[in-house]
């Protein structure tokens, strides 16, 4: 029944965006065919998986935060922070040559995670101490991170040999994630898969996961039980932002190969939708991210083949979220019925 409602929600999203297509004089069948082309074609599917990596990392972190009822929307900014940190490390090592190539990536992963964590702890701490609304603080920090990143790339970190193009120098080979042979998928996907397992274990098996659940269910009950709200949300956000930071690193070291302005096309926001749609379940998130990766690729196919804006993928994602939210009402309703 509950599964049927989920299906109906997804179906409704298709119908509504279908109507939008019709109104924009686009053949909806053809549009959907293009939108889901990735799932019929190995080259595109491999591209979909590539897109899914940052989405996956962000969504996994957000799921943990949402379990603690901390509604972070800061994934996008944390992606930029991750991008800034990895670029800094690359430039720093290029100058000082302190790290041999084979040690660079493990070291970079740790440093990116840590610095992004610090960025993520800020809104958590502000909420714990001053009750600031975390949706607003994390969002504001997204703009700040993006402005800083764009400033660096057109200012001090601009590639002197880049013919005036606004980007950093290219990352050396040792700062790139190797590709899985025969595909365009880079190895950072294993960070995502590992993260999903770790998040699952944290939530299902550990004392910390228990504390997260209590805090998420009732702030007062947690306080009464002697669980420190500050500690739990700060830790949750440290992990969440750390993972989003790695998403930024995976974009630069895995795909783009250098820092560019506005390098994330909104993966941080897509992550929010994926986390909710996958019911905050870490394993479903892995699958859901690949689906959304495909959707993003499909959006580009639509843009190049039919001249439609990639914005339509955002529309479709938002509609999916809205219909799923609406579906929850019917799931609840059924529960009350039965009792």
């Amino acid at each position, binding site marked *: 029944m509950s599964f049927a409602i989920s299906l109906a929600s997804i179906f409704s999203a298709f119908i509504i965006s279908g109507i939008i297509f019709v109104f924009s004089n686009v053949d909806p069948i053809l549009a959907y065919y293009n939108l889901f082309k990735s799932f019929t074609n190995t080259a595109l599917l491999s591209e979909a998986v590539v897109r899914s990596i940052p989405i996956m990392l962000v969504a996994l972190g957000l799921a943990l935060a949402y379990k603690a009822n901390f509604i972070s929307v800061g994934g996008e900014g944390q992606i930029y922070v991750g991008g800034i940190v990895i670029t800094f490390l690359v430039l720093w090592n290029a100058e000082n040559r302190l790290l041999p190539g084979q040690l660079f990536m493990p070291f970079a992963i740790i440093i990116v995670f840590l610095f992004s964590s610090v960025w993520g702890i800020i809104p958590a701490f502000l909420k714990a101490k001053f009750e600031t609304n975390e*949706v607003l603080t994390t969002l504001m*920090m997204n703009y700040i991170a993006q402005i800083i990143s764009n400033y660096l790339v057109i200012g001090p970190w601009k590639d002197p040999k880049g013919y005036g193009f606004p980007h950093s120098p290219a990352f050396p080979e040792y700062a790139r994630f190797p590709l899985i042979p025969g595909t365009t998928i880079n190895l950072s996907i294993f960070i995502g898969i590992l993260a999903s397992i770790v998040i699952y274990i944290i939530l299902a098996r550990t004392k910390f996961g228990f504390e997260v659940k209590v805090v998420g269910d009732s702030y007062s009950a947690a306080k009464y039980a002697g669980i420190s709200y500050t500690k739990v949300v700060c830790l949750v956000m440290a992990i969440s932002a750390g993972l989003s930071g790695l998403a930024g690193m995976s974009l630069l070291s895995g795909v783009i190969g250098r820092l560019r302005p506005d390098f994330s096309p909104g993966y941080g926001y897509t992550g929010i939708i994926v986390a909710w749609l996958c019911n905050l379940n870490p394993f479903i998130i892995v699958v859901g991210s690949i689906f959304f990766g495909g959707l993003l690729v499909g959006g580009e196919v639509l843009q190049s083949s039919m001249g439609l804006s990639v914005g339509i993928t955002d529309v479709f994602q938002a509609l999916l979220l809205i219909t799923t*939210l609406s579906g929850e009402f019917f799931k609840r309703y059924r529960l009350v019925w039965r009792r």
Partner: protein
Amino acid sequence: MDPLTILTTMFILMVQEGSILLIATLGEIFTERSGILNLGVEGLMCFGALSSFVVYYLTGNWITATLAAALAGLALSLIHAFVSITLKANQTVSGLAITILGLGLSSFIGRPLALSRVRIEPLESVRIPVLSDLPVIGPSFFNQNPLVYLSYIMVIILWFILYKTGFGLNLRSVGENPSMADSLGINVFLTRYIATSVGGALCGVSGALLILGYYPSWYDGITAGRGWIAVALVIFSSWNPLYAFFGAYFFGLVGTLNATFQSIGFRVIPTDFFRTLPYLLTIVVLVIFSSTRFRKRKMPASLGKPYTREL
């Protein structure tokens, strides 16, 4: 440049930026006073901006264009109203969805406009006699386009509706204690629907002011987080339209610093720093005004909580 000219220029920019924020803040205040948290402001603004741009481009009539923006904001906010009032879903998530939907729709529909670099003539300023001759204040506050004047009037109208009319009393009561209002025969759902759609329409209008007034061509992400700042301004204004006036212009002023410092050739720190200021300041304001001492008694007691009638 002499200081007076600089100051006047700053003030003109401040009023322009501030009025955009003001209309959206007023809309969100109206919505939140009924107990509905609509985080979709950014999306409503953006979709409103696009709609008014399209209509203005086609008709050349700014009133029709503004109405189109209001309608666009209203339409999207009705989705939020349905999901959060009728279906009682999580209002935060629904609001985020509305933001993404609004931005996505605008980008989808606006793509041909963005590609063809269509431009419109910005709205002309209307000089208010006598008042516009005042130094600094005159050219900034009283020589603006009609939508800016609308923002001033809306402050008074919304304040009056909220505090001096029966409907306003109903609306505030629904935001404080819906079950009580319901027991006194007030239609909670209808009141919340009205508040959400009127608020959404105002957010749309603020988008119209943004694009018809100051950004004569369309590009993605034109709202640049102003909708979110408006949401924060609601807290800063303690949910009162009169305070929103001051809050919005204060933020308007901060938003002009980048341009001002660039124009006077300030080089001590990168002027990009000033671009982060509105966002940074929003966080600071949230920290100050979120502490219980400031907020508890002002925030509508049922904000964000869906209302279900007992059976």
